[in-house]
């Protein structure tokens, strides 16, 4: 196996995107994504069984499309990589079944890796940004997770500083969109509705930000109280809800509350740990206001912000392949074939089921 610049195919099926990525070392060759989002839209959120069925049908065409785009053959692969968690168990298992079938078929090593750490690895593929420096704080925000991490080494030392105790930020956008009568997914809809609104119009609560919360939950997030506050406000002020300008103010004020708490806690983490670097990842990074506020306040705090291209921020297979390529380059042995899906895989487990060291990285 080429350990320095391995050719890796990554499979990601932790939520509603079937992602197949191919990398050669730190070079992105293909990032193919089939999304079942449209199928979930009528339900107002991701339905696990619908997602799992869609993954099964999307995988083979996505792998074929990724190979064609990368202009490589399956026989060229040095390794296969797959997300083993965290995520929706039934969805993860489709990717794991495929990854094992493919790895055994080809006789290639298999690397089972952590989805959240994969989001950080996505940054490595952004070659214009220069190398990722350590340590860095990482804020990962999507429909499935809201996590604040301290990354000392992508392949060896990632610490969870905090995460949401209830809804993910993206979920809060979806739920508030419904309150405002906007379709799913809520993020872009709220962004659009908020464009002309006053972010200071309504002082919505900032979850887990009171002095009394800060002892136990300094870096944790909570968005369910905010969602309820918006719903309460909308019910109490039907005339605002019925009016474009009023709705814009509610949307902008809600968005500001989410963005404020995300950025404040991320920059707190940077300051507390003396880390002048912040990496953003996850689909909610598409939110323009979040990027704006993060860049503005980080600059004031002397913190450098890195944001990978949006196509690498949402769930994708390239980040999984990139993490595996980094692991291989660092000398990590492959995973054994015995791992399963772990829907709550802790971020400290960067790779699961690491095989006992065998010379040359051969599978035992």
């Amino acid at each position: 196996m080429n350990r320095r610049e391995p050719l890796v195919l990554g499979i990601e099926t932790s939520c509603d995107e079937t992602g197949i990525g191919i990398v050669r070392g730190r070079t992105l060759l293909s990032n193919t994504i089939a999304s079942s989002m449209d199928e979930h839209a009528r339900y107002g959120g991701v339905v696990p069984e619908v997602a799992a069925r869609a993954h099964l049908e999307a995988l083979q065409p996505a792998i074929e499309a990724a190979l064609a785009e990368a202009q490589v053959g399956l026989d060229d692969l040095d390794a296969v990589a797959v997300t083993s968690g965290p995520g929706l168990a039934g969805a993860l298992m489709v990717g794991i079944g495929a990854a094992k079938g493919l790895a055994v078929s080809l006789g290639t090593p298999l690397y089972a890796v952590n989805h959240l750490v994969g989001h950080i690895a996505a940054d490595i593929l952004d070659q214009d940004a220069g190398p990722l420096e350590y340590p860095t704080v990482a804020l990962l925000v999507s429909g499935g997770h809201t996590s604040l991490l301290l990354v000392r080494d992508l392949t060896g030392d990632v610490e969870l500083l905090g995460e949401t105790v209830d809804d993910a930020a993206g979920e809060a956008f979806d739920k508030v969109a419904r309150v405002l009568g906007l379709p799913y997914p809520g993020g872009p809809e709220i962004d659009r509705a908020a464009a002309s609104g006053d972010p200071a119009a309504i002082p919505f609560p900032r979850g887990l930000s009171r002095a009394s919360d800060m002892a136990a939950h300094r870096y944790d997030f909570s968005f369910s109280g905010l969602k309820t506050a918006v719903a309460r406000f909308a019910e109490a002020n039907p005339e605002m809800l019925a009016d474009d300008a009023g709705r814009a103010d509610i949307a902008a004020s809600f968005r500001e509350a989410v963005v404020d708490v995300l950025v404040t806690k991320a920059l707190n983490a940077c300051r507390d740990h003396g880390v002048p670097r912040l990496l953003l990842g996850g689909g909610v990074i598409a939110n323009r206001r979040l990027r704006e506020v993060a860049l503005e306040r980080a600059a004031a705090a002397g913190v450098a912000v890195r944001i990978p291209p949006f196509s690498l921020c949402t769930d994708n297979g390239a980040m999984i392949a990139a993490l595996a390529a980094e692991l291989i380059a660092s000398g990590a042995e492959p995973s054994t074939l015995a791992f399963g899906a772990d829907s709550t895989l802790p971020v400290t487990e960067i790779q699961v089921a690491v095989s006992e060291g065998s010379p040359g990285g051969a599978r035992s």
Partner: protein
Amino acid sequence: MILGIDTSLGTAVAVIEPDGVVVAAADSPNSLGHAEAIGGLLEQVLAPADAITHVAVGMGPGPFTGLRVGIAAARAFALGRGIPILPVPSHDAAALGLLLGDAVAGADDTAPFAVVTDARRREFAFSVFEGTDDDGVAVRIAGPLLAPRDELDDRLAALGAARRDVTAVPAAMVALAASRALAAGRTLATSEPLYLRSPDVTLPGAPKKVTA
């Protein structure tokens, strides 16, 4: 050689010669843990020199989460080798196994019988068979269908089928059923998994009131 995979109940894999001779077989009866089991079992039955020409896979019915693991692995394995996939209703494979066992035991082979498997949620899945045809494939005359547990026996009585509960689908029988169908130029199933149920979701209503 044909690789057979079935995860409609436990996890079962086998490699057979086209005439049915079993080269290797391995299974895990665990009705969960398909994702964990599938890779090691595949490695166990495959030898580096095996020239696998087709992958036969059980399409269910069976609990969805496990069923998909086998189908995903089978499709990816076939893709990796550039070989075709042969979908087989899992009940057809189970029926073929029962009929071959009966033949060995010298039992009557012509009476209708039902392959019955656990479909969870207080339901059974069943298919009714009547002997084998000239191609050596079990003849399915009804199913696969779902029946509530307490209605199954009445349904089977109405069909005149003896009940035969099955707790494991042999992967060698998946491969053999596929092999016999292939030899006869037939296909036994489409590429659609036999879910028999829609995804269990309800459309959202209006947002709930938060104030009294």
